[in-house]
């Protein structure tokens, strides 16, 4: 969020909306209306004085009405931009009344009641629609009493209650009496998977199952005395990376009880405000009433209320649920009905965070094809470097941060104190050092007093160090001669009640900051050239999508495929849900496109070795060697081989869903297996998935595949039964297909892993299946001409082993490659310049693999669209004269940065590759001879801080 606010290429227009849109892809004109904010973004520093003086108190939307805010406010503490806004509906300044408190309190005259907003006309080449979803309003279901009963909360309200900065400071209390509840009910599918009139949407909102499981764990963490959590659900849909494992962990929580069943109603006790939940447990058939202190409704997600209008402005269509419609012909979830307009995340239907992030990067890649890239904003000629030799002349700048610091700390006394610290040549204070005015002052004083080291005692370096460093650089002072001391977060914020002690601590911190600054050395960012080409490993959908996107952006691409042909697994499928596209056709179009492009395709090729680092990888293959700047791994996954499970090896008519797909591929219309139309087909789900013996995770693709195949068989008159643990309808329209299958008469029967179905047969053929029907508590005997096992996905062991060995990309416990961050970095790895697309990082369907292919291309393009990549200079370096080549550093570094190098005559020394080093300092702290130095955190610098903290304490 901060990054977006600060990026020179991003102009953030908040409180704004699109009102007109015309033109063609590559050349659209967008008119954006900026609604008045009544506070000038350029002047407001976010000090909060106005809020203090505003007399109006209204409910806070961000806290879903549970907290309060003023009429002039910042939506939440970390808001970007951190500019306040006046809610004129509640402001006292209207035509008749004049309050003017906020205007009078603002030192910078940022408040302007006459702000009229503005209309901006923007020339854009493409549009990315990322408008998200709205939360279902649970009061539409009167039987749950949301909005009527005090102690019925929505899941979003619970999120705010759990948050340490939320309305209850993270304490879980029930609204009616502010007491800690002992027993809480979690009710799933509120407004989702609806049946009947008052039930909301028919689709699955996807995010709520895992969100509620997470909340159960958090509730227990916040209130360890909680006695019971009862979780009412229909199917447990834990279908993302690591989700199933997370769910399994929750099963070990003694306080948490899972009840399969959708409550019919909640009633409130008018006196105690306790709640009674009425439910039928569908596994036991038992109807019961369960008394709880509080209930949390997992409210589903619905299309944004502004979608209608936005679709009209953009000229794109909506689907039947009012989400933006995805053009099905691409198979990918990113294309809207208008070329040049792309969609991602929940704007086009419900996705979890990690899929949304992949889609966002993918949409970025699509949009990039329609724009001219401009060189990075560096129009200013860098100033000549200042001479910083000679004894240190330290400048100390003290920031008031409005009242954030000066309201607690005695800044005047700190100023006086700082003047007495050795080598301090100048001290100044400022109301807002980060403001333009403050930064100009700092620059002037540095030049005027020939300061060669600078210390700022202000807020957090996390947000403001780059600002101050940039200001130093602008006037030619090396930015690494700047040191920041965080007297806000570490003094005034945490010791608000004891100003004297807080001020004393600030004195110590400033003194140690100056001590370090005396020893700071200039450092320089090195740029290394980038080889502007990419390697894509794997020619399935993910790999082909990545290669095509990169090529469309004008990049040189090598596409390597182990097999003799492109197309991967897609070519073997019949139809792709949800639009019933021909898989073969989709694959054929992509292969044709690749062949017609400049992508250098190498089929039947394997990788022998890869060396180097971001921007400069040397690739050796069985088909020649070349250099690339970035690598996308898209080697897919294998289908689990069932072996003797469910007598797969023994009976010829026990097949996998992949084998059924092959059969359906060859039959047109009439279902014909080996010359006969089967009468009865039984599917068994979760074979090789959700099991600690095989893949602990959910394979995601199998439930929708089974539904698709079951519909096909049923439509040909076959009796179909699906034996499952939870039906998980991952993907667009999958829930609707599930409903359709049930309407067609496909029977869905649940089993538990403790009591698996039994396949019974004779000789070489299975004849029937025995399965226990849970609610009836009876063994069912189902005839079966064919048994279809929904075999999950497993990592392709040989390929992943080899790639891991070559590229050092870590793998998770499930054997798939690990993403940099499960939510925020789904296609990145911890190895810089190496990206993932498709099933190589866990099971995915076609649409998700296509989105990830595009996403990986966007990430890769960000590196190779530049001539050089700049390296952060705060790395570790080896002083060769002290190194005894023990090799300890080589073994301990997670990034493989150090290596032993032969210097002739049998002498070896360690060298650290600056491109690979992250500057963490682990090796420097361990090095037995002290040969390794962590630049910017040298022993001398750290020791001088410690010395002054421990010895000079006043």
């Amino acid at each position, binding site marked *: 969020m901060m990054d977006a606010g600060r990026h020179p290429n991003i102009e953030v227009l908040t409180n704004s909306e699109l009102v007109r849109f015309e033109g063609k892809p*590559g050349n659209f004109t967008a008119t954006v209306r900026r609604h008045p904010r009544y506070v000038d973004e350029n002047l407001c520093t976010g000090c909060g004085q106005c809020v203090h003086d505003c007399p109006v108190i209204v409910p806070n939307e*961000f806290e879903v009405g549970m907290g309060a805010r003023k009429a002039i406010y910042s939506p939440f503490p970390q*808001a970007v931009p951190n500019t306040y806004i006046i809610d004129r509906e509640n402001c006292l300044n209207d035509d008749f009344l004049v309050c003017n408190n906020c205007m009078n309190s603002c030192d910078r005259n940022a408040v302007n009641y006459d702000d009229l907003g503005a209309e901006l006309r923007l020339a854009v080449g493409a549009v990315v629609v*990322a408008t998200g979803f709205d939360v279902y309003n649970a009061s539409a279901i009167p039987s749950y009493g949301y909005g009527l009963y005090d102690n019925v909360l929505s899941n979003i309200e619970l999120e705010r209650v*759990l948050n340490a900065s939320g309305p209850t400071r993270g304490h879980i209390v029930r609204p009616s009496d502010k007491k800690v509840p002992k027993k809480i009910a979690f009710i799933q599918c509120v407004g989702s998977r609806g049946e009947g009139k008052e039930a909301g949407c028919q689709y699955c909102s996807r995010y709520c199952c895992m969100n509620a499981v997470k909340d159960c764990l958090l509730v227990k963490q916040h209130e360890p005395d909680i006695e019971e959590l009862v979780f009412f659900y229909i199917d447990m849909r834990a279908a993302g990376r690591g989700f199933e494992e997370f769910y399994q962990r929750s099963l070990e929580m003694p306080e948490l009880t899972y009840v399969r069943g959708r409550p019919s109603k909640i009633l409130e006790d008018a006196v105690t405000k306790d709640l009674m939940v009425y439910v039928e447990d569908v596994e036991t058939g038992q109807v019961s009433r369960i008394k709880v202190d509080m209930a949390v409704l997992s409210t589903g997600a619905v299309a944004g209320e502004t979608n209608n209008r936005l679709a009209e402005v953009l000229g794109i269509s909506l689907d039947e649920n009012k989400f933006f419609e995805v053009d099905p012909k691409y198979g990918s979830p990113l294309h809207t009905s208008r070329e040049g307009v792309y969609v991602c995340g929940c704007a086009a239907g419900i996705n979890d965070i990690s899929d949304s*992030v992949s889609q966002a990067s993918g949409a970025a890649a699509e949009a990039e094809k329609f724009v*001219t890239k401009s060189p990075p904003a560096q129009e200013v000629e860098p100033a000549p470097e200042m001479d910083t030799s000679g004894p240190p002349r330290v400048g100390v700048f003290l920031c008031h941060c409005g009242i954030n610091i000066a309201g607690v700390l005695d800044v005047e006394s700190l100023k006086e104190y700082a003047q007495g610290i050795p080598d301090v040549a100048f001290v100044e204070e400022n109301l807002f050092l980060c403001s333009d005015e403050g930064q100009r002052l700092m620059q002037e004083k540095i030049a005027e007093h020939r300061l060669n080291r600078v210390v700022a005692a202000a807020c957090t370096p996390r947000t403001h160090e780059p600002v101050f460093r940039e200001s130093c650089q602008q006037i030619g002072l090396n930015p690494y001669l700047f040191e920041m001391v965080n007297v806000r977060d570490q003094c005034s914020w945490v010791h608000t009640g004891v100003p004297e002690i807080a001020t004393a601590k600030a004195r110590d911190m400033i003194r140690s900051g100056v001590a370090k600054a005396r020893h700071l050395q200039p450092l320089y960012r090195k740029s290394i050239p980038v080889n502007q080409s990419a390697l894509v490993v794997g020619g399935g959908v993910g790999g082909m999508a990545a290669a095509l996107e990169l090529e469309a*952006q004008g990049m040189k691409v090598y596409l390597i495929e182990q097999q003799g042909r492109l197309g991967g697994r897609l070519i073997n499928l019949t139809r792709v849900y949800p639009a019933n596209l021909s898989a073969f056709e989709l694959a054929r179009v992509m292969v044709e496109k690749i062949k017609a492009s400049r992508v250098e395709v190498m089929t039947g090729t394997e990788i022998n070795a890869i060396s180097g680092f971001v921007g400069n990888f040397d690739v050796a293959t069985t088909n020649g060697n070349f250099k690339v700047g970035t690598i996308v791994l898209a080697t897919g996954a294998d289908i689990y081989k069932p072996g003797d499970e469910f007598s797969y090896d023994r009976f010829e008519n026990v097949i996998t869903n992949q084998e059924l797909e092959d059969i359906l591929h060859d039959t047109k219309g009439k279902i014909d297996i080996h010359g006969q139309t089967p009468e009865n087909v039984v599917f068994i789900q979760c074979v090789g998935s959700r099991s600690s013996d095989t893949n602990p995770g959910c394979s995601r693709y199998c439930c929708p595949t089974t539904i698709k195949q079951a519909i096909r068989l049923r439509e040909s008159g076959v009796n179909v039964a699906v034996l499952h643990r939870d039906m998980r309808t991952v993907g667009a329209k999958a829930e609707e297909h599930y409903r359709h299958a049930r309407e067609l008469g496909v029977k869905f029967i649940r089993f538990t892993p403790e009591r698996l179905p039994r396949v019974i047969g004779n000789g070489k053929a299975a004849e029937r299946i025995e399965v226990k029907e849970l609610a009836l508590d009876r063994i069912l005997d189902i005839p079966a001409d064919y048994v279809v096992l929904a075999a999950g996905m497993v990592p392709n062991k040989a390929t992943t082993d080899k790639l891991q060995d070559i590229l050092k990309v870590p793998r998770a416990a499930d054997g798939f490659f690990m993403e940099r961050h499960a939510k925020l970095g789904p296609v990145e790895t911890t190895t810089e310049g190496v990206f993932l697309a498709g099933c190589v990082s866990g099971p995915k369907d076609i649409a998700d693999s296509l989105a990830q292919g595009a996403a990986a291309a966007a990430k890769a393009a960000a590196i190779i669209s530049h001539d050089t990549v700049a390296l952060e200079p705060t790395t570790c370096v080896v002083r060769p004269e002290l190194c005894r080549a023990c090799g300890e550093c080589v073994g301990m570094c997670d990034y493989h940065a150090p290596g032993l190098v032969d210097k002739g005559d049998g002498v070896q020394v360690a060298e650290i590759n600056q491109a690979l080093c992250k500057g963490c300092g682990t090796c420097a702290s361990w090095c037995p001879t002290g040969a390794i130095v962590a630049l910017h955190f040298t022993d001398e610098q750290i020791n001088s801080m410690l010395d002054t903290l421990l010895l000079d304490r006043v």
Partner: protein
Amino acid sequence: MAKQPGKAGAVLVLGGGITGIQAALDLAASDVKVYLVERSPSLGGRMAQLDKTFPTMDCAI
């Protein structure tokens, strides 16, 4: 990259939640100018309202 005639130099991203921010950052990283338009007064969207995210339990904001 050479300037391609006839193409605008910017992308409009509608929505300042996690997906909009991600798309904007990816475009910006490839030297594309981005207008990030958000209807409400701050970036952040839904995710900023969440406390922690599963399964890593990282802070959501």
